[in-house]
């Protein structure tokens, strides 16, 4: 399979590992930003084969995990209305709200549907003119262009029974928040390749030079991740703090210009609450006034819904790399993928779920 086989090649992986081992003279702490990277690292046991001193912290880049509880509760309130067809990506359905999840809404008769693209939800709206169709527009810069396109298309086609519940988040402000946090141990970042496919990596130059951290744009296959680690370690060992692109087969410096223009037309930057972390200034997107007619929050009057997190859940510290999932007292006890307290235990990309699934105590590994 082209573009996958060569990046899952055990021989290439071994060569990169050898070079990392040869180059490492002291301990370094890196953070992979994206949940997809976390999953791949744990899935392939990459952290187990790195030299002793290289520690990988798992960043806040799982879109499911950081979507705030109140957004889930708002989604559940909207999805419970009889006139609504609520469309969502599959892995949002099991994220616990304050009382239930979207699966729970479905089992109580709500019309909750999984779609693979927000454009499918626009089609559902066209096919069901007497129903209100709402799409749960969450995620990072990666998913935002398709969501912007859906809103754009709904306006162009005059689809008035379509709206989006927006809870978009942005990576660079989160990296800055992590670096500003007291006790931050991160010395280098593996930036999320797919986010950079859209946005490019010019924004990271400022972060790298101001905070003195290497930032390596990294892919998701084992060879990609090992190459990202290798480049970050080489920079740290040489005392450099630069932005490097280790994922050039899909990432260009300026990203995807068409997508960026569309995003700028549809969305504007706003403050955003991150689940488990709190409000981060200028870290999200909301619809611009010209597109407010498509804002489900206003249409269904759910903006007042607020929520309180479980006190047992330490996902905020996990998302900031302050603790590893298995250091949370509730990990594997009160909190399991079957009964998740926080969203990091739900999605495959959540660090807690990845640890639980691939590396529980008793397996004699990890």
């Amino acid at each position, binding site marked *: *399979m082209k573009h*996958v086989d060569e990046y*899952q090649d*055990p021989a290439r*992986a*071994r060569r990169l*590992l050898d070079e990392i081992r040869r180059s490492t003279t002291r301990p370094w702490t890196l953070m992979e930003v994206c949940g*997809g990277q976390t999953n791949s690292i*744990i*899935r*392939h*046991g*990459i*952290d*187990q*084969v790195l030299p002793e001193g290289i520690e990988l912290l798992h960043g806040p880049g799982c*879109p*499911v995990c950081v979507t705030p509880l109140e957004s889930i509760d708002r989604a559940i309130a909207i999805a419970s209305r009889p006139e609504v067809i609520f469309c969502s*990506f*599959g*892995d*949002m*359905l*099991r994220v616990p709200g304050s009382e239930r999840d979207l699966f729970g809404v479905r089992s109580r008769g709500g019309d909750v549907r*999984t779609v*693979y693209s927000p454009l499918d939800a626009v089609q559902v709206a066209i096919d069901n003119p007497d129903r209100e169709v709402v799409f749960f527009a*969450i*995620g*990072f810069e*990666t*998913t935002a262009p398709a969501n912007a396109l859906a809103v754009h298309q709904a306006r162009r086609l005059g689809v008035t029974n379509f709206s989006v519940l927006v809870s978009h988040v942005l990576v660079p402000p989160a990296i800055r928040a992590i670096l500003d946090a007291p006790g931050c141990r991160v010395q280098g970042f593996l930036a999320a390749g*797919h986010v950079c496919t859209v946005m490019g990596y010019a924004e990271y130059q400022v972060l790298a030079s101001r905070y003195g951290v290497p930032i390596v744009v990294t892919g998701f296959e*084992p060879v990609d991740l*090992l190459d990202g680690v290798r480049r970050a370690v080489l920079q740290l060992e040489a005392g450099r703090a630069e932005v490097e692109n280790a994922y050039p087969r899909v990432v260009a410096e300026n990203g995807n210009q068409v997508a960026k223009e569309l995003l700028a037309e549809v969305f504007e930057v706003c403050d955003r609450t991150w689940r488990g972390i709190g409000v981060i200034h200028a870290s999200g997107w909301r619809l611009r006034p010209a597109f407010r007619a498509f804002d489900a929050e206003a249409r269904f009057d759910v903006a007042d819904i607020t929520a309180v997190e479980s006190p047992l859940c330490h996902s905020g510290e996990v998302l900031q790399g302050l603790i590893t999932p298995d250091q949370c007292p509730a990990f594997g006890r009160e909190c399991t*993928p*079957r009964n998740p307290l926080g969203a990091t235990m739900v*999605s*495959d*990309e959540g660090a807690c779920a990845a640890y639980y*699934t*691939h*590396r*529980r105590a*008793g*397996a*004699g*590994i*990890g």
Partner: protein
Amino acid sequence: MAEPVDPSNWSCPAPLADRALVVLGHGGGGRLTAELLEGVFLPALANPLLDQLADSTVFPVPAGGRLALSTDAFVVSPLFFPGGDIGSLAVHGTVNDLACSGAVPLHLTAAFVIEEGTPVELLARIAHSMGAAAQAAGVAIVAGDTKVVERGRGDGVYITTAGVGVVRPGADVRPERATTGDAVLLSGPIGQHGVAVMSVREGLEFGSPVVSDSAPIHALVAALFDAGIDVHTLRDPTRGGLAATLNEIAAAARVGIEVDELAVPVADAVRSACALMGLDPMQVANEGRLVAVVPGGSAEAALDALRLTPGGEQAVVIGRVVDDHHGMVVGLTLVGGTRIIDMPLGELLPRIC
């Protein structure tokens, strides 16, 4: 006392030939039901035992032997998918469950719950597919039932099959027999059925179409016994995929199972589809694969036997039973790391990005 009268029989007096769609009366037990049987099911499934058309079917069994009995309900949507349909699936599923007890499948029964409004022509295609699948698997469908539910109360057709088979003399095939030192064999590439169904259901296309692996595996099982292998455990990794099957074996036998992930065959199209949807091929359903646990010393002979049997050409040894991490399945990854291969939770959730 007179039989209770079913008014639906009054409203549907026309012969089947005039009806393109199933009506409630087809489930009423009256003339319409008889027409559905005679027009659709009996021609497709005919055999001397079924033709008894009695309240139950009577057949001889070997004296002193052991019987295996299994039942399975099929609710697949869509009813037709690349490489199969609900009819052939309903035969293969039960034949394979019997085979995995070390039994030679003998007879099946089939019960149909049909949604009002289902095209009769579609039922006929399903029935013919069942008949063909049964013939290919060397079994007969010897008893059956049909019911019709109101429109909107079903999903076209649900089929439940049950099957009886004769266990080979001396065979002792159970998950609990998996023992340290045993080899774990897999008969072919995984994930094809699940991806084939999902691709149709979700309207996704992946370069080359993925075709379901739905097939009977009793011949593969027979090949192992004919080769004189002391087969410890057999499973067909259906829902939950290879991951669920291996976990069930590890839990039942209180052993650990170690899997060389690079050895597990996955077709390119399945791999890319799973990558796109964020699924682990190990958790995706199969309907024509066999997992066999045999003594380590018999692994080569078992592999040869499988590879010489149609459907087993791509058989491989994927791992071993170990006296470690009891109840768990651990994968050796391509970078030389390890991971738990967990029991899937339930519904597979496609990932968002």
